[in-house]
């Protein structure tokens, strides 16, 4: 091994020296093994001690030893370095893998800290790339100052900015109140199911206490599963703070496992606003942001595939409009409705259908029970499709799909009249081309610094 491990002393300063190999933090294997391994370890140790100290369990000790050695080896053979705008990560003992991540193509950079890592002062850095195969660079784990400075350095490289520059100040846009977040979670799908279960159990206990015990025993597993899903959502959105910095949008959140995500300018593929049925009583909505590429690998895979990154987990329409104006200034305001005969085709959806188009953005609304509004920047449109099913043909309607590289949002102009649809389809490719050309001329345009006043005062990092 030719690389020299990075001592904390050499990295505590302004930045990491470029071009030299670095190691991850020595405690990484422990954190990566996570709670599960910790629990097993505790059980093993306890049972070994509890068996009367006759040390008759060499197998258990051997298992622990093997796990330890495997962790140390994996740490020894993993190293990374930054050179020429490329992050290289090498890992593996028998099967060496060497990954290269060109920083100019980074879609987002996340700093994730699971509970255990926070206790130890460590953080994981994740680079999200646009690849379709879920390719993402993970550096797990680095010390906190190391992770911070490396993130700033990578972002500066990704933007082609001088990397010696101090971390730019950021403006906090908004933070979600915890009470509202809890209320909003209790008013959506999984929350409602759990509430129904609990209420049912309470009623059963009141009527026939003897039967309740058995039911509780049977339903406990599913209840726990639901609570787990709810917890994940709660933890992911807890005190989510949106901040605006010159290098992009910063999202920070988390109660136990915290994550900080930076979305460079011009990487937002699409936005979606959803309004579940019960939220509409309070005038609440949720805004999610869609990026290119697939969900990140690893443990976060499942949760991040289900729920896109929320820009606003829950908030009023006023907040939403204000935030949208910051992220996608100049989105179309006037919406067109489909012809009334669409009622025959989609009776539930009809009242939610509409669309709007201007030179920069397309906005579509849809949804049967909950209303979803999608914004797509025309400069991000990959392809345009016109689809017409048999019922639509009968009613002289079409649908126009706008495909982006994002993974969740897919804007569809549903059910315009065929003539309208044809006109839109004929004009759209040219509009998209013009938007792309504009985007190229002004690479990552900054939103106007004045105009909308921030809800909270600007804070310097």
């Amino acid at each position, binding site marked *: 091994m030719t690389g020299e491990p990075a001592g904390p002393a050499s990295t505590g300063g302004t930045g990491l020296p470029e071009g030299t190999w670095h190691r991850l933090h020595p405690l990484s294997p422990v954190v990566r093994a996570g709670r599960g391994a910790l629990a097993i370890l505790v059980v093993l140790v306890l049972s070994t001690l509890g068996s009367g100290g006759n040390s008759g369990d060499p197998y258990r000790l051997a298992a622990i030893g093997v796990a330890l050695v495997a962790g140390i080896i994996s740490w020894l053979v993993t190293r990374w370095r930054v050179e020429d705008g490329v992050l290289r990560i090498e890992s593996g003992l028998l099967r060496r893998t060497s990954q290269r991540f060109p920083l100019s*193509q980074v*879609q987002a950079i996340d700093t994730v800290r699971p509970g255990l890592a926070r206790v130890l002062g460590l953080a994981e850095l994740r680079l999200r790339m*646009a690849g*379709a195969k879920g390719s993402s660079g993970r550096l797990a784990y680095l010390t906190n100052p190391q992770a911070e400075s490396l993130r700033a350095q990578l972002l500066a490289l990704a933007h082609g900015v001088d990397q010696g520059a101090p971390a730019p100040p950021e403006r906090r846009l908004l933070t979600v109140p915890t009470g509202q977040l809890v209320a909003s979670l209790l008013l959506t799908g999984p929350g409602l199911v759990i509430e129904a279960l609990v209420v049912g159990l309470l009623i059963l206990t009141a009527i026939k206490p003897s039967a309740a015990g058995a039911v509780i025993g049977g339903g406990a597993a599913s209840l726990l599963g639901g609570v787990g899903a709810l917890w994940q959502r709660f933890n992911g959105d807890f005190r989510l703070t949106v901040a605006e910095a010159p290098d992009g949008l910063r999202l920070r959140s988390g109660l136990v496992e915290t994550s900080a995500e930076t979305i460079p300018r011009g*990487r937002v*593929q699409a936005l979606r606003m959803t309004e579940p049925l019960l939220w509409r009583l309070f005038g609440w909505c949720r805004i999610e942001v869609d990026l*290119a590429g697939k969900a990140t690998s690893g443990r976060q895979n499942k949760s991040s595939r289900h729920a896109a990154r929320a820009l606003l987990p829950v908030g009023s329409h006023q907040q939403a409009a204000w935030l949208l104006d910051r992220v996608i200034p100049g989105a179309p305001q006037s919406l067109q409705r489909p012809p009334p005969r669409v009622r025959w085709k989609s009776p539930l959806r009809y009242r939610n259908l509409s669309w709007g188009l201007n030179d920069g953005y397309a906005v579509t609304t849809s949804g049967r029970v909950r209303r979803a509004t999608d914004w797509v920047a025309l400069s*991000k449109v*990959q*392809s*345009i*499709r*016109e*689809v*017409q*099913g*048999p019922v639509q*043909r*009968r009613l002289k309607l079409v649908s126009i*799909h706008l*495909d*982006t*590289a*994002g*993974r969740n949002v*897919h804007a569809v102009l549903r059910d315009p009249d*065929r*003539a309208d649809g*044809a006109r839109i*389809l*004929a004009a*759209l*490719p040219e509009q*998209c*081309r013009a938007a*792309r050309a504009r985007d*190229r001329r002004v690479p990552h345009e900054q939103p106007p610094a004045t105009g909308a006043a921030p809800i909270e005062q600007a804070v310097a990092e």
Partner: protein
Amino acid sequence: MPPRDLTTRPQRGSVSRRWLHWCDVAPFEEADGPGTQWARPSSRLRTLRRWEVGVLTGALLIVGVAIPLALAAVAVAVGVAVAILLAGLITDLFVGRRVRAWGYAEHREDLMVRRGVMFRRLSVIPYGRMQYIDVTAGPFERMFGLATVQMHTAAAASDAKIPGLPASEAARLRDQLSSLGESQAAGL
């Protein structure tokens, strides 16, 4: 089947003809003006699809007739044979309509591909958005000298595929598309 003009509306006559029109192929002339010239897959694709349907029908026929015959139920065997043949014929009709529905047009800055009879789709893909192009030819396609060209963009949903192109045309299209894609490439 005799060729017939698919663009004009048939007279209001038999129910079956009206129904056929209902799910019929009409060009998307509105999309790009009436002047769009649609290139079609090779006529050998029709033959290939007919062979596929024929072989499948034949295999079903053998199984479907052999079992009742083994049980000495001749009437059943005849009934099954007629049903399978009829199904094969109808399938062939539908497959033929599907084949005729494919079309593509190369414009100055984007490629248009249309397909489908019941669910008609028309895709517009800017050359600059193409990430890569696949040319595949399965064993049966190769027997007929055909190939399938598929365009991929960064969006998973945009699926532009043109089956049944003569191998030379497929190669030309691939080269043409990739050179146009290079010259007009746009970032994400």
